[in-house]
């Protein structure tokens, strides 16, 4: 599965995208966030205020309780500041 990161999430993790193989028990966005936070200090720092992280699956906003099965691309980013 492809993960993409933007803004300070990207900066703190240290790269803009990666391919990951998820364990079978990671089935929701919330599960993905806590699994990622355990992958190292940079992930832990980037995701420590998990509730502030916005998530899109296949380029559509989703809530943290959304299921991730069938996702091709999951994006993590801070609240948006465009406009």
């Amino acid at each position, binding site marked *: 599965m492809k993960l*993409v990161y*933007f803004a300070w999430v990207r900066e703190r993790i240290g790269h803009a995208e990666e391919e990951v193989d998820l364990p079978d028990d990671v089935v929701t966005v919330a599960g993905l966030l806590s699994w990622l936070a355990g992958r190292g200090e940079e992930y832990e720092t980037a995701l420590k205020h998990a509730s502030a992280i916005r998530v899109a699956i296949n*380029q559509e*906003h989703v809530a943290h309780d959304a299921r991730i099965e069938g996702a091709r691309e999951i994006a993590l*980013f801070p609240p*948006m*500041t*465009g*406009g």
Partner: protein
Amino acid sequence: MSAPIEPAVRIQREDFDLAHESAALCAGRTDIGALVTFTGLCRDEAGTLAALELEHYPGMADAEIRRIARQAVERWPLSGLRVIHRYGKVRPGDNIVAVLAASRHRQAAFDAAAFMMDFLKTRAPFWKKEHRSDGSEGGWVEARDIDDEATQRWREPSAADR
């Protein structure tokens, strides 16, 4: 009420020309009574900002703004709707975003333009990073709660807003 029109959405690095966009929206038409344009510009009241770096999520930025624009054209009887959002580096005084909404009457045009901006601010995947005049990094601009609150007013049926 006729079928909703197709909104025009562009995500681009280049600047835009509001006059050109207005002319394109209204050209040869006599059914437009009201045109509302919104332009968002890069501000620097303190005089400490060298530039804003606008990061965006390619693909989703376009798709999300189109989703918002489709809601607008279904909700208000618009003759035209056009949205342009820039990415990359912009300097104080530069354009960042434009929304143009045309309708027979003014209220629909005003409401649709304000609605687009409220949702664009909180849902379109763009992030602003400050670069300071002294060469230091100013950090990422923080989202404002007031922008989330602004979207709440559109929850009521549109008739209640009038």
